[in-house]
């Protein structure tokens, strides 16, 4: 049970902050999200990555109650999103991809408007973020740049001290400086209050920096869901030099992507183990094998290229 200013809401205290079970959404005959199952433990940060059209925004919109769920179930803080959205919204913050709000309002009016809906609004958090972001309360929303709007969006999403923060590609189209300031704001919230964060992004450097876990979507399906460190330590890029005029005979089943160019055979493997490398050398006519670490961005590209079957 948790209490917000006198109102008691039944929730699971120790369960995952976000839980998706067989979540499915179709647009016409096309599956935007298909049988998606994953859990985000409390106090952790999940980076949701995938190419355009992978189903990231659809998943987030279903979580926010903005899209109906065709099949499966989504729960936030133990509450079913199909039944408890107003109660859930009191406890979550949301930053959308497009930061469009009332252009005619001043920042102070927008803050006052948003503040009135939350029982847990904290003026100190709001003021400190206004200072951190250098926002002028008197400015009208229509006078703000995209970067400023993004910061206002974050400020509005976190000033009621949410237990879960959902960010839907909030940093797309921002310059590196604003992105850095935005991430500082998010990190401050995460560090100060052990907030659970789910964020989708194309900026994989930011995901690698911020996320504890990563979930990769492709064509509405979950390809990978694991801790970022584990993924980066287990996945390797293998470069093998083949003997003249021969092609690889055996490909490890753990191969995500591969490419053969003349004598060079490149493959990304997850998980990569010494035993696998031994077998690779034993089964294939290779002269030399080199193993390298691979960053999240390259790994993401390899997963997508592997799925698409492109070199």
């Amino acid at each position, binding site marked *: 049970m948790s209490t917000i200013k006198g109102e008691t809401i039944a929730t699971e205290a120790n369960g995952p902050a976000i839980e998706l079970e067989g979540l499915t959404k179709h647009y016409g005959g096309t599956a935007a999200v298909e049988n998606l199952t994953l859990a985000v433990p409390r106090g952790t940060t999940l980076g949701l990555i995938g190419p355009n059209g992978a189903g990231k925004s659809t998943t987030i919109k279903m979580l926010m109650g*903005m*899209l109906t769920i065709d099949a499966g179930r989504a729960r936030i803080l133990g509450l079913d999103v199909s039944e408890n959205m107003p109660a859930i919204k009191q406890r979550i913050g949301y930053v959308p991809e497009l930061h*469009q709000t009332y252009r005619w309002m001043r920042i102070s009016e927008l803050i006052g408007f948003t503040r*009135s809906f*939350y029982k847990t609004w904290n003026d100190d958090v709001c003021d400190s973020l206004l200072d951190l972001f250098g926002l002028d309360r008197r400015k009208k929303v229509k006078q703000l740049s995209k970067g400023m709007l993004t910061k206002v969006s974050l400020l509005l999403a976190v000033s009621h001290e949410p237990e879960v923060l959902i960010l839907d590609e909030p940093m797309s189209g921002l310059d590196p400086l604003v992105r850095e300031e935005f991430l500082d704001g998010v990190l401050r919230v995460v560090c100060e209050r052990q907030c659970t964060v789910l964020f989708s992004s194309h900026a994989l450097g930011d995901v690698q920096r911020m996320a504890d876990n990563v979930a990769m979507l492709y064509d509405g399906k979950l390809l990978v869901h694991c801790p970022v460190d584990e993924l980066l330590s287990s996945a390797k890029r293998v470069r093998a030099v083949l003997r003249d005029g021969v092609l690889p005979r055996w490909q490890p089943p753990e191969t995500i992507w591969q490419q053969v160019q003349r004598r060079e055979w490149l493959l990304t493997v997850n998980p990569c183990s010494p035993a696998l490398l031994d077998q690779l050398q034993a089964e294939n006519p290779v002269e030399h094998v080199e193993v390298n670490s691979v960053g999240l961005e390259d790994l993401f590209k390899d997963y997508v290229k592997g799925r698409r079957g492109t070199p």
Partner: protein
Amino acid sequence: MKALLWKDFRINLPVIITGLLLWFAAYAAIGLNVWLQTWPVFPGRGQWSEVIQIASVGGRALLTIVVGVLGANAIASERAERSTEFLFSLPPTRLKILTSKFLVALTTTILLWLGHQFMSDVVSPWLSANGASVNRVPLLGYTGGLVLIFGSTWLGSARLSSPAFALGGGIALCVAVISVLFEISRRVTWPVPDLVPIGMLVAGITAFLVGSIYYLRRIEP
């Protein structure tokens, strides 16, 4: 709810100001016209009483346009401004959001209407020599018209993303409904009292309910 009402009042402020200006314009234009006819003599009390009666009829005709714009603006303006996603990310339910929009439109309409009623039912008889009130607007017919225009434009607003298209669509629907009702009343052989005003009332309420249900169920944005 207070914050939602404040927001909807601010969104509709240009329409409300226009409504007030039209309210005054109706009396000012007709009053000025009568004064110019009697120039340089200032019109007497009886003449002002008549001016107010005529102006209140004209003002109420103009009010139907304001009500139509209020209905068209209610939902579509937020969609046009693209603030819907932000609004839906906040805790209020759609029903509360919709109720606030309706209350702002309803309050504005009632206040402007009561202003005209006050002028025609209180001020005009007070100025008149015999204290009589003339040239009354039929209450049922006028209410039916207002409800029909509001319901139709509200339905358009729930369905479309542009207040202008919602207004145009709503007016077209009104014309169609009124034409059908007149045609029915012309063809029926047995007497049906107040068929057209009651028909307008029913059609307006139906359009309002359909628009509201559509909005509550619609996937936004």
